[in-house]
């Protein structure tokens, strides 16, 4: 299969089941909403080193938030339920509670699995906190020097998917980067997905384990490193000199497949040789995103 001359390799991305929370942050202006969201989602590229993967899903108009102020929706993902609760409390407590004018709401109100967040953060109020039940949901009002921080007591958790991906094999570093930027831009604000890496792009794709160390769980994906072409079993066509990866996490497989379709299409441009994907032979992750099926409109 080719799209505008770019080969779509006959392979698949292998992804994992993760736990997801959706956090709605509002504030007096987008300046402070973004400030809180950027801190909340900072250092959250991969569970390998950050314990959590997070990103901004999309910006929300004032008419689409619980308190009628501008907001953003953030997805925060971990490998287990227990972990998700801990990370939510740590991160919301350190980055949203601290940020002027913001409030924080649950974005999965219908999720059956719920974890206490406001119920833990309330103790910062040192006994001066108060709660309000509005429409059956409890909110905590934590007094702070600026005024009050409002946070919902419980946040919903659902099963999502982490590790959807595709690789952009470029003739040069410049063409690979341009294609990756276009792909990331095209997937921004796509409902139900986040791109947890810087700018949505990863230059250091990994393989499972290490040749040298038994304790490392991941190391450089040498088969896709152009500088190692002569010394390793390469997966790169001759004319490829740079590879960038787009990693996509989402609330469900369909959202990821839909975002991949948009992103791959945007990446297929002059200077890109092929689109590939990262997998582990299909034995580790239950979700397989076959590139050719996705681009043919058949989904995951």
């Amino acid at each position, binding site marked *: 299969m080719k799209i505008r001359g770019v080969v779509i390799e006959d392979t698949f991305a292998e992804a994992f089941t993760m736990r997801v929370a959706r956090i709605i942050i509002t504030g007096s202006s987008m300046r402070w909403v973004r400030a809180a969201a950027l801190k909340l989602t900072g250092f959250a590229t991969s569970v390998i080193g950050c314990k959590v993967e997070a990103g901004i899903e999309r910006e929300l108009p004032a008419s689409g938030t619980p308190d009628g102020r501008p907001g953003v929706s953030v997805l925060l993902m971990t490998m287990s339920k227990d972990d998700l609760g801990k990370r939510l409390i740590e991160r919301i407590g350190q980055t949203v509670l601290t940020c002027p004018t913001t409030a924080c709401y649950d974005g999965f109100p219908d999720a059956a699995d719920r974890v206490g967040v406001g119920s833990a953060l309330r103790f910062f109020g040192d006994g001066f906190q*108060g709660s309000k039940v*509005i*429409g059956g949901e409890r*909110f905590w009002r934590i007094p702070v020097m600026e005024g*009050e921080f409002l946070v919902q007591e419980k946040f919903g958790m659902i099963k999502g998917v982490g590790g959807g991906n595709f690789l952009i094999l470029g003739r040069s570093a410049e063409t690979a980067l341009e294609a990756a930027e276009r792909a990331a831009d095209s997937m921004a604000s796509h409902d139900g997905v986040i791109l947890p890496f810087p700018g949505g792009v990863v230059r250091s794709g990994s393989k499972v384990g290490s040749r040298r160390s038994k304790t490392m769980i991941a190391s450089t994906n040498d088969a896709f490193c152009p500088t190692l072409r002569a010394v390793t079993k390469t997966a790169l066509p001759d004319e490829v000199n740079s590879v960038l990866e787009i990693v996509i996490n989402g609330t469900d497989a369909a959202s990821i497949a839909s975002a991949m379709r948009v992103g791959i299409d945007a990446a297929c441009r002059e200077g890109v040789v092929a689109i590939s994907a990262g997998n582990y032979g299909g034995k580790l992750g239950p979700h397989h995103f076959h590139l050719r099926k996705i681009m043919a409109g058949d989904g995951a």
Partner: protein
Amino acid sequence: MSDGLTARLKSSLEQRVDCSAVLAAPWAALSADELSKRTVELERHGRVPLGELFEIKGSPAGRIRFTGDLSRADRLAAGLSEGTVTVEGNLGDEAGLGMAAGALVIEGNAGARTGAAAPGFRRGMTGGELIVQGSAGAEAGASMRRGMLAIGGRAGERVGLGMIAGNIVVFGTAGENAGLWSKRGSIAALGGITPPASYAYACTYQPIHLRVMLLRLQTLYGIRVRKRQLAGLYRRYSGDLAELGKGEILEWMAT
């Protein structure tokens, strides 16, 4: 989907009538015939079936709509714990007395002690939403423990008397001694209020939880909330300091 039941007053009420047993749980799944057999207590003529006073139609769907002048109908939806009850006009005293869940929407005015505690009980409303589109009489929301009482017009004196917790929003003026002896709970006054002397001024700020509450009232019950009220500043008074002092009065700053 069914629109639920309708209860049309057959002729104007010549005496006060106690409706406290009409919507005792479970009522939401009762048919029109079954509900007609529930009794009400006439002030002079004693107990009669509801069906003698109201023509009840429709099929059960957890909703009932009362029509006619019910100014003399007292204690309707007392102890309400399910469903949505709408009253098209005015309603008598003690509506939604000690209600626990569900919604009571009064499209006209309500009498005294709306949503208050039943005689001999320490707690008033313990849940649900009681919406009075018009004005409410004295001691609305007295001893409220949880839930929401919204009054579109003015509230009589002592609204939120002895509140334990919960939320009261008054869009018109609030009468004297609002929130007197409250322990916790919030009274948001959007049309003028004089807090009792046992409340102390804290600050002027924008309470975000009130935005969530006001938007809910606007979206669900069609109560008109002005942008200035939503985004405006409120004076916060803590009280009642003669009690626990964890309650508050939030007074909207109109200018």
